């Protein structure tokens, strides 16, 4: 875009230079002819040159955004330069022309070059002034503004030309009429100066000075241009219309800047109040934007105190934040933490978090510092910052002696602390939901791992029913069970529970599965498998993680069950009407070194009878809780098993799970539930 607009500017400039060249040619051939058509042609050329230069400047202006004040500064500099040129032309030009006449053979040509160049410079000045005035005019975005300005421009041109062409007695009133209308339009178009209202007090003072200087310069330049000096003569000799146009634009400028000067002068007394209001509006706008953007709590606190300081015009601001039983000073602005803590103490002696529901003020009584700079604080306003309906923080703004908090200040702080509360609440909620989402994602992964680790189906044998039920907890509990077909007549099984929860437990489960899968292929005796597993896991796990496990196998040919227990829940044997908890000695895996583990580990063997039911489970079963936080427990578990003992293994496991579900319906399932049931039927 920049490139394109630059190209356009170049084209306009080329046209301007072309016209300028034509002007030069014209001067060489015709000089200052009195022939009317030639004068019209000359004025057309001049108009064309001003027109193209204006177009080029407009494009150039539009390609960048300029503050009104810097544009005014430019006008000031240019009018000063103009002043110097006009003043010095009286002294320098005669000398130059004398030199030309003396030294050169063809002084007319050089004279023409110099005068065309001189005129072009003034065309440049006038174009820039006009452009800047046009820019200010369009700062007022009223309706029909374009028409007002264009009408004025037409009258400018008419007034300029008429002076030149209607000099006869009977038509000279036309020229005066056009001039009067032009001046009226200038005044009318200059009174729309609302843009200065948006300037700060400092900028208004600056503008006042500038507009005064510029008005003076313009008036001086007008009187210089209309007088009988070299400058005036040169321009007049070139084209009387141009001279007239030049004066008209300068008059417009002086009227505009004069009105600007007075308007600014009358705006000055209210400038400070306006500044404050504007500051409040921008701060609140900024803050409402902030609510949706800033996520980090500490960043937010910094911004809150920063804005509060500007908003209330305070010396220092900070936040008192309740952190459990303690209070912290946060994001202190323009005050040390030692001093702010002292003031905080004084505030909290007089009001508690709970009692502070709206903004109020306190005088600071005690000296807070030996340092006179920070000791000058005399009054504070305190506003509550509420989250979840409770006052969680206090926004403190402190002013020095001699300053007061006006009702406006307090209203602003009240509104602002409400905004701050919303923003802080938002950031807290967001943080929570991000954390929750992260945790849920992690648990999804953990559950997926667990789902893939556990067997898809139970092995099927003619004389051994096998059933298993697994119900994962929301936070993966680390339960694992598996079956291994060792030979055609030997079925290995393992049930284990990793300490801890979540993704780390899931990874350990995967490791445990690998260990048992490979060991079961090479070692037969449960005790030896567990010793080996303990040896591996003692190395692999950190000291606070361990695995409870029971490993065993059914020998279908020998009608025997052999198993060992490493810290896991006992095995239930239901035979006839009896039930038996079998709990051979054994430490959890990963708790102790091999020697001690081996020494304390027992192996247990059962000769199977018809209808023997063997139940393995994890503590999720017996520790399932009801709404009174009572455990399902061994007793209820055994009762449930015994009263349904005639069901198949499959039916029995489903029935037990149903009973557990009913029992714990009032309480969230906290741990994985695993239940494996074998039933021997020949």
């Amino acid at each position: 875009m920049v490139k394109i607009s630059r190209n356009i500017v170049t084209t306009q400039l080329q046209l301007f230079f072309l016209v300028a060249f034509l002007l030069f040619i014209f001067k060489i051939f015709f000089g200052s002819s009195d022939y009317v058509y030639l004068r019209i042609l000359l004025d057309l050329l001049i108009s064309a040159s001003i027109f193209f230069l204006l177009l080029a400047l407009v494009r150039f202006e539009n390609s960048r955004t300029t503050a009104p004040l810097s544009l005014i500064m430019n006008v000031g500099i240019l009018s000063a330069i103009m002043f110097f040129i006009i003043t010095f032309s009286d002294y320098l030009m005669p000398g130059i022309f004398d030199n030309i006449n003396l030294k050169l053979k063809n002084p007319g040509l050089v004279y023409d070059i110099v005068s065309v160049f001189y005129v072009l410079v003034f065309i440049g000045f006038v174009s820039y002034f006009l452009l800047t005035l046009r820019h200010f005019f369009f700062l007022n975005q009223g309706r029909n503004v374009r028409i007002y300005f264009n009408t004025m421009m037409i009258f400018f041109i008419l007034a300029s030309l008429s002076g030149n062409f209607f000099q006869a007695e009977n038509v000279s009133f036309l020229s005066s009429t056009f001039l009067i209308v032009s001046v009226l339009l200038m005044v009318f178009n200059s009174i729309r100066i609302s843009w200065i209202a948006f300037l700060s007090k400092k900028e208004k003072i600056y503008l006042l000075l500038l507009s005064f200087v510029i008005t003076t310069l313009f008036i001086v330049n007008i009187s210089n241009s209309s007088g009988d000096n070299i400058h005036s003569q040169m321009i007049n000799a070139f084209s009387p219309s141009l001279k007239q146009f030049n004066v008209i634009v300068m008059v417009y400028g002086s009227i505009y800047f004069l009105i600007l000067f007075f308007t600014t002068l009358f705006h000055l007394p209210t400038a400070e109040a306006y500044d404050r209001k504007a500051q409040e509006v921008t701060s609140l706008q900024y803050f409402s934007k902030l609510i949706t953007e800033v996520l980090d709590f500490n960043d937010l606190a910094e911004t809150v105190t920063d804005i509060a300081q500007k908003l209330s015009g305070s010396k220092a601001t900070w936040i008192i934040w309740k952190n459990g039983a303690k209070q912290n000073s946060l994001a202190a602005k323009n005050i040390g933490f030692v001093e702010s803590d002292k003031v905080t103490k004084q505030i909290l002696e007089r009001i508690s978090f709970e009692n502070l529901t709206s903004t109020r003020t306190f005088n600071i009584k005690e000296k807070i510092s030996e340092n006179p700079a920070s000791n000058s604080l005399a009054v504070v306003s305190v506003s509550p910052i509420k989250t979840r309906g409770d006052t969680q923080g206090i926004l403190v703004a402190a002013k020095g002696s001699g300053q007061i908090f006006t009702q406006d200040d307090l209203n602003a702080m009240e509104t602002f602390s409400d905004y701050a509360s919303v923003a802080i609440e938002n950031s807290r909620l967001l943080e929570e939901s991000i954390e929750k989402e992260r945790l849920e994602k992690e648990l999804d992964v953990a559950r997926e791992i667990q789902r893939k680790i556990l067997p898809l189906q139970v092995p099927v044998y003619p004389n051994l029913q096998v059933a298993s039920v697994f119900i994962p907890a929301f936070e993966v509990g680390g339960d694992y069970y598996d079956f291994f077909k060792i030979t055609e007549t030997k079925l290995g099984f393992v049930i284990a529970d990793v300490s801890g929860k979540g993704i780390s437990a899931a990874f350990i489960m995967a490791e445990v599965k690998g260990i048992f899968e490979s060991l079961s292929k090479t070692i037969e005796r449960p005790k030896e498998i567990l010793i080996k597993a303990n040896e591996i896991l003692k190395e692999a796990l950190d000291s606070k993680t361990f695995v409870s496990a029971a490993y065993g196998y059914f020998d279908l040919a020998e009608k025997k069950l052999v198993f060992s227990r490493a810290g896991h829940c006992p095995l239930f044997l239901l035979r006839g009407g009896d039930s038996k908890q079998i709990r051979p000695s054994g430490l959890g895996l990963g708790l102790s070194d091999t020697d001690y583990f081996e020494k304390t580990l027992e192996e247990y063997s059962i000769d199977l009878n018809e209808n023997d039911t063997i139940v393995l489970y994890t503590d999720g079963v017996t520790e399932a809780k009801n709404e009174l936080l009572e455990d399902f427990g061994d007793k209820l578990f055994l009762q449930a098993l015994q009263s349904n003992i005639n069901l198949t293994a499959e039916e029995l496991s489903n029935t037990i799970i149903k009973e557990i579900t009913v029992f714990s319906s009032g309480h969230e399932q906290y741990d994985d539930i695993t239940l494996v049931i074998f039933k021997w039927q020949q």
Partner: protein
Amino acid sequence: MAEFSTSVRENGDISIINLKGFLDAHTAPTLESNFTQLINDSKFKIVVNFENLAYISSAGLGVFMAYIESIRDNKGDIKLTNMSDKVFNIFDLLGFPLLYEIYKNEEEAIKKFSGS
């Protein structure tokens, strides 16, 4: 989940940690920081009183395993007292009585420290 808190008392050169509430994966860090603090202060004779402990999970048991080695290396010990049957059963299942000295009350544990 449920609440958990600890308090630490001194009895001569023996430190006594009282547990209260539910000790699980979420509340374990509280107890961990107690042990870390005691080890930093070179207090290696520790008695843990379970009287007010309602529940302990496997992650809770893990806390004791995490520190026992360095404490015993420094000629100290963690002795456990006043367990309810339910809590004892959880320790017992995993074989913890083979790894830790468990006493009926604090006095016995303290006496054991003084005796050895």
